[in-house]
């Protein structure tokens, strides 16, 4: 399958007539089916969206309103929870930490992962690829004890370096996996003709293949950024008070005796909103990344 963005294009509303036109299909069913289909789609969308909407609503309520079941939908919205969370709990620091760790670990993983994926794809190094993909399979806890021991001896626990290293460990297999299926789909002829024209193999990779792979790298990079932003377990063990990331900060929120629901929902919204906005603008990359390699034999 091609990972290229064009993949999803034919299905957008505008492209429908063009796709249908060459071979008019018999409609899948009767009127009843159409009604059923619409109803089912609405149910699916509600099922997926309603919980998020509820979280957003609760973040705009005072705690008194949250406890009042009569005010589920009708209430006076307030931004007090956000003000509390962002200012009193220093969430700007956590936001920066999350962003920085995700950004650097993604960038470094791309530098290591893209050439590796290229070599593994072009020279069909399946066993080597298996070594890298092993990192996706192994339970993280089994690595954390030795990591923690080594890194605390090196006085690195609580620093950004160790967090970035651990997140690279998540990002690298993902990038290698996505880029391998991307390079598999790029025709070999382009590089070969570039070499006939006098470029060395590495030159052909840099001048021809890399520029053609921007979409693939965007796919891999965005997904690895999201995975790093969402990562909880590694940060729970390896981050210190100065490098705490957002998921850990949210988790700490509930360790107090009684839960401040409004504040907790505001915090949960703060961590999910940035990633959802990124997702909305990069939708087709995320879809192609999630499905990379899924449909080849």
């Amino acid at each position, binding site marked *: 399958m091609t990972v290229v963005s064009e*993949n999803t294009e034919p299905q*957008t*509303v505008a492209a429908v007539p063009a796709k*249908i036109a060459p071979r008019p*299909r*018999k409609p*899948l069913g009767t009127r009843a089916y159409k009604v059923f*289909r619409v109803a*089912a789609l609405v149910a*699916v*969308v509600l099922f*997926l969206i309603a*919980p*998020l909407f509820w*979280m957003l609503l609760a973040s705009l309520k005072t705690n008194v309103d949250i406890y009042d*079941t009569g005010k*589920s939908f009708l209430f006076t919205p307030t931004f007090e929870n956000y003000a509390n969370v962002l200012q009193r709990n220093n969430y700007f620091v956590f936001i920066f930490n999350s962003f920085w760790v995700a950004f650097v670990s993604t960038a470094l993983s791309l530098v290591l*992962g893209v050439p*590796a994926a290229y070599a*593994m794809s072009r020279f069909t190094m399946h066993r*080597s690829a298996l070594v*890298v993909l*092993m*990192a996706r*399979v*192994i*339970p*993280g*806890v*089994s690595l*954390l*004890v030795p990591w923690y*021991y080594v890194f605390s001896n090196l006085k690195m626990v609580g620093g950004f370096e160790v967090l970035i*290293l651990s997140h690279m*460990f998540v990002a*690298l297999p993902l990038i*290698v996996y996505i880029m391998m299926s991307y390079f598999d789909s790029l025709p070999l002829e382009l590089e070969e003709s570039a070499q006939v024209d006098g*470029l*060395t193999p*590495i*030159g052909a990779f840099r001048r021809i293949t890399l520029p053609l792979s921007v979409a693939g790298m965007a796919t891999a990079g965005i997904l690895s950024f999201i995975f790093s932003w*969402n990562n*909880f*377990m590694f940060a729970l063990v390896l981050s210190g008070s100065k490098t705490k990331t957002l*998921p850990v900060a*949210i*988790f700490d929120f*509930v360790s107090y005796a009684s839960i401040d*629901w409004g504040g*907790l929902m505001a*915090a949960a919204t703060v*961590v*999910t909103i940035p*990633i*959802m906005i990124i997702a909305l603008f990069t*939708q087709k990359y995320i*879809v192609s990344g*999630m499905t990379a390699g*899924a449909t080849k*034999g």
Partner: protein
Amino acid sequence: MSVLTTPRSAQTQPPSGRKGARTPGARENFSGWANRHRKWLFAAPAMIFVGVLIVFPLGWTLYLSLTDSQGSVRAASEFVGVQNYLTVLSDVERFWPAVGRTLSFTGVALVCEVVLGMCIALLLWRPFRGEKWVRVAILLPLVATPVAVGMMWRLIFDPNIGFVNQLLGMVGIPGQPWLSGQDTALGTTIFMDVWQWTPMVVLILLAGLTSLSEEPDEAARMDGANAFQRFFFITLPLMMPTVIVAILLRGIDALKTFDILYATKGKGGGSFHEVETLNVYAYGLSFDYNQYGLSSAVLILFFMIIIGSMWLLTMRKKAVSK
């Protein structure tokens, strides 16, 4: 910027320092060497990185599992052979229930996700108006931070103020304890997993459906097969390799689920260990109780379960791809 392969840029280089070594001959040598060994030159850094971060810790975990290490990894520990494995394998209070929960969590979640995912993918298969919005709705749970998702469900499933019990109350069904109930907690976390990850299965299956050729379906239609027959006898068999890929990708992550369990029930999977899966159990042994020897034994067994189930699935996939 200068490129190794252009003679033009080589001539303008200053003749000293490291770059100065790029006189035509030397450049030729380095470039030739790099090009000849590009296979390993490209692949080695990533492999060394992963290797160092995996092989050494895994070896150490294996070693720890054979010792009575506890309290601190630095503390002296004795070699006890397979004692930890015997202790773990005869532990019917924590270990075996955790194995059971891990397998039932993964199994039930996977079945729900694949069945639901296939239904939704079939709904989305043929183009329709407003498809864009449905696709956005599918994407949102997928990218949401699991810990935040856990917190969100904690509020929604709260027995007193949660929206779910409010809804049930409206139709006259008594409220359920959900996450705080000893019997309902695991099911509730499975529901959360289904909510978050069914979209991924949908995307994978949809990619598979769109890449199917239409001829077999068309031919069966000519022969008068109805929609159900066409799905079960044509589409589903053709989709089996994709379905197995979806199960494989999803299954690895489901077995290792940690975030939502720890975020909703905390240490030990709740006060009665209601949602304590192997991963949560091993994490607790390592970082809440510092029983490194025991936890390493649990982890090695856990790892074997993961590898074993992956191997079975890969075999199955090879069988259906033929």
